[in-house]
């Protein structure tokens, strides 16, 4: 029977982390050299964790599927990173960042985790500056800030529209240093396909060398997953095409609980979808909402072009619905508001899937040069994709799956329900509750990797005496067999449909029934359709080539096979949660004006799912106790 012990330290919120750090056991420097830690993934969380563990003296084996660790998808984050520095003296503090984040998550995250995140946020900025990250500066030489959705202070640090790139390259450079020192062995183009569990503890992984196709078992004293989120289960998302659920899903199959999978963030400002061959949706940074105003025509099916619609006939719907926050309303509310006006037939552009994001006012007030300096690269990107000049006509935007708050369940020490398996960054569920605020994912990835995991993992390593298992241990061989048989099943199917065609189909099912708004009937129909689609996949999928070579289609088909199983877990979770909170909007649970109806009496818990072979997953609940803040109706009006 699975037991969920969050291991939150007792006592006042402000001192929980300090006391935990002091009570943790340490590993002596001589023993660290004898300990091997596997880190899977080299995004912000993985690269910062691997480099820090290397600095501390552990032997680190680091894996990524990309050709270089620098290409992990954190690279694409645009807007910025939050920190409670209060450099602007506008009333910010650790307490306020904590409160904004827990309220932004609609009171579905742990107080202790979120408070710790706010505490270490300030150290992250200092660390990044020391690593040579060229943050935006004021003329006086101090660090510059901007504001982001869902908050009323200016606490976001940024590097033009490429903050994720610069933070990742900083973590990558720290990783390069440790590779140079021989503390980290880096294995690019290597994909984790299964987890090796011995006597209930994570002891290694099965990997496939993507160049030679060779499968092998890598053993270690502990395994860290930093493998990102699963938005690509929707097929069209803002994620890189390689981002996938396989590592966390395979760990789930081996006994790690999966928490809140239905908390998926649909980002309001992406470029609207075009034709059927489209492979991804391109995000336009939320920072654009600082200066851009969202509107649609007041009249449904208005065919006039934007400049022919007079001011009085425009509906600035976010400013109308959320006067206090206006265009900076949080992502979940903004996305649903966009969907609502489009559903009323007031959407603009092809198929009515879009709303205007208009910069005319700020250009008139501050000049085109100011706007170009702030957002130039985003305007260029928009023009390349759509062929339209957003300095002259308003942008058109539409929501897109972007980030997943759900992930493997972890305790306060970031350890999953499998001892020795740690999960960090977007791959875990811990800090964002039911909705993540802008510029908080970079903060969480680096908090976990630089400042939290290196402490908590040492406690585990100091308290268990383990020798490395052998590559030919019976559990290693069993894991290897699971992977081999799966690969040969894929290669032997020899049907007539491509993996992408199945991916597109399951993505559409989820978007329609488990997307921006959900209801029991739709979810039940998805739960009936997904197993049928999965059966067809295994009957009719076509994967050319063999397994012992470089075979991109085989890699992809394996990931799609996992989406086809994981999609079901997502729907189970969405069906169980009979309330609307954060990004999860159940149509049956809303107040009159279309605002979500949260149910703290029944659902103030983390839903952690346990895998059972051949049967429906089992639900376990971790109650969320609020000792320090009072959950209130999350109002931004």
């Amino acid at each position: 029977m699975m037991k969920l012990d969050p291991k939150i330290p007792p006592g006042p919120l402000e001192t929980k982390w300090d006391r935990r750090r002091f009570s943790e056991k340490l590993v002596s420097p001589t023993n660290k050299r004898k300990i091997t830690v596997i880190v899977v993934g080299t995004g912000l969380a993985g690269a910062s964790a691997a480099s820090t563990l290397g600095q501390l003296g552990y032997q680190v084996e680091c894996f990524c599927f990309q050709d270089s660790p620098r290409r992990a998808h954190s690279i694409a984050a645009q807007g910025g990173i939050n920190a409670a520095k209060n450099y602007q003296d506008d009333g910010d503090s650790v307490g306020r960042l904590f409160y904004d984040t827990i309220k932004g998550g609609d009171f579905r995250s742990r107080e202790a985790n979120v408070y710790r995140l706010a505490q270490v946020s300030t150290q992250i900025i200092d660390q990044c500056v020391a690593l040579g990250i060229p943050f935006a500066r004021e003329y006086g030489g101090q660090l510059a800030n901007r504001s982001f959705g869902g908050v009323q202070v200016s606490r976001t640090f940024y590097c033009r529209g490429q903050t994720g790139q610069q933070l990742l390259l900083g973590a990558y450079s720290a990783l390069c240093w440790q590779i140079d020192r021989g503390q980290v062995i880096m294995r690019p183009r290597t994909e984790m396909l299964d987890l090796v569990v011995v006597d209930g503890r994570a002891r290694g992984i099965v990997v496939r060398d993507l160049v030679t196709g060779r499968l092998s078992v890598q053993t270690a004293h502990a395994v860290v997953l930093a493998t990102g989120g699963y938005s690509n289960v929707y097929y069209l998302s803002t994620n890189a095409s390689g981002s996938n659920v396989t590592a966390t899903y395979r760990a789930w199959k081996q006994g790690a609980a999966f928490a809140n999978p239905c908390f998926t963030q649909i980002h309001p400002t992406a470029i609207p979808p075009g034709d059927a061959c489209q492979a991804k949706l391109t995000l336009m940074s939320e920072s654009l909402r600082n200066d851009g105003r969202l509107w649609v025509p007041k009249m449904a099916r208005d065919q006039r072009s934007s400049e022919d619609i007079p001011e009085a006939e425009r509906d600035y719907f976010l400013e109308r619905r959320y006067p206090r926050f206006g265009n900076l309303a949080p992502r979940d509310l903004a996305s649903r508001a966009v969907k609502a006006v489009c559903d009323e037939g007031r959407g603009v552009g092809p198929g009515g899937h879009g709303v205007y994001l208009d910069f005319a006012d700020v250009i008139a007030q501050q000049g085109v040069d100011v706007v170009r300096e702030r957002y130039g690269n985003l305007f260029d990107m928009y023009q390349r994709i759509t062929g339209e000049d957003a300095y002259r006509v308003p942008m058109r935007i539409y929501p897109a799956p972007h980030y997943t708050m759900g992930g493997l369940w972890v305790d306060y020490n970031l350890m999953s329900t499998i001892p020795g398996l740690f999960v960090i960054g977007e791959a875990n569920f811990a800090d964002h509750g039911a909705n993540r605020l802008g510029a908080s994912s970079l903060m969480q990835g680096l908090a976990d990797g630089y400042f939290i995991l290196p402490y908590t993992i040492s406690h585990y390593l100091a308290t268990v005496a383990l020798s490395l298992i052998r590559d030919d241990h019976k559990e290693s061989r069993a894991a290897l067999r699971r992977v081999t048989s799966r690969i040969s099943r894929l290669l032997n199917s020899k049907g007539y449909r491509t993996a992408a065609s199945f991916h597109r189909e399951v993505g559409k099912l989820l978007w329609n029934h488990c997307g921006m708004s959900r209801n029991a009937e739709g979810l039940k129909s998805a739960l009936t359709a997904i197993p049928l689609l999965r059966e067809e996949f295994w009957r009719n999928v076509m994967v050319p080539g063999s397994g012992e070579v470089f075979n991109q289609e085989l890699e992809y088909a394996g990931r799609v096979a996992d989406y086809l199983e994981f999609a079901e877990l997502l729907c189970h979770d969405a069906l169980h949660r009979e309330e609307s909170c954060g990004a999860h909007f159940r149509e049956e649970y809303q107040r009159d004006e279309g605002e979500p109806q949260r149910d703290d009496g029944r659902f103030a818990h983390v839903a952690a799912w346990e895998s059972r072979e051949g049967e429906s997953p089992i639900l376990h609940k971790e109650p969320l106790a609020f000792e320090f803040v009072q959950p209130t109706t999350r109002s931004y009006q």
Partner: protein
Amino acid sequence: MRFTLNIWRQNGPDEKGRFVTYEAHDVSSGMSFLEMLDSVNQGLIAKGEEPVAFEQDCREGICGSCSLVINGIPHGPDRGITSCQLYMRRFSDGAVITIEPWRARAFPIIKDLVVDRRALDRIMQAGGYISVHTGGAVDGNVLLISKDQAETAMDAASCIGCGACVAACKNASAMLFVAAKVSHLALLPQGKPERTRRVKTMLEAMDREGFGSCGNQNECEAVCPKRISVRFIARFNREYLRAGIVESGLPAEPESPHAEST
């Protein structure tokens, strides 16, 4: 729209490669170049044939994975973009398009259009970092950095490590890549303590990996998707000269963080 594609196919690093011709039908002008290749591949897979291997990931011009030589030019005919940011409206209907991998001794071909660029990582591992431990950093506002200087460092730091500069250079030099990193770190006060060592070890690593020398012909800047300027190569040369002077024991230039600007 329809196109005739001449695509380089090669089974492995030691195999002989050749151009194979494919027809792309029903292409819409709003499709990206990679989506056009996807649709060709979908047709091949459905027939049980091996698709054309090519590298891609973020499809928004920032990860640096995509790496196609299109009609002889790395990343294709437009300046300041990656292959994934190229759209088919750029080509005329019926055009013949040639697609090749990066070609350089330091980038062996893995399959078709996919090359091994680990040499660039090894150059970074030779000194493209600041040796700073996690924890204990001073407050971010302790060292002031002028806006101009931060912006210039950011220009250099924008490099996505795609290797187009190498593919465009007749000497297959990685000079722009190395110069961008050396400049980024040398421009910031945090990077100063290691600047002398860094410029030398990174250049040595570049030579060791089999990249050629800079021929000052600036093709690298012309194809760089982030428009990184060859002025950073000039800055690299100054850094290299300075390192020589420092190591010879002669007095070098002052180390004030505000001494340099663009």
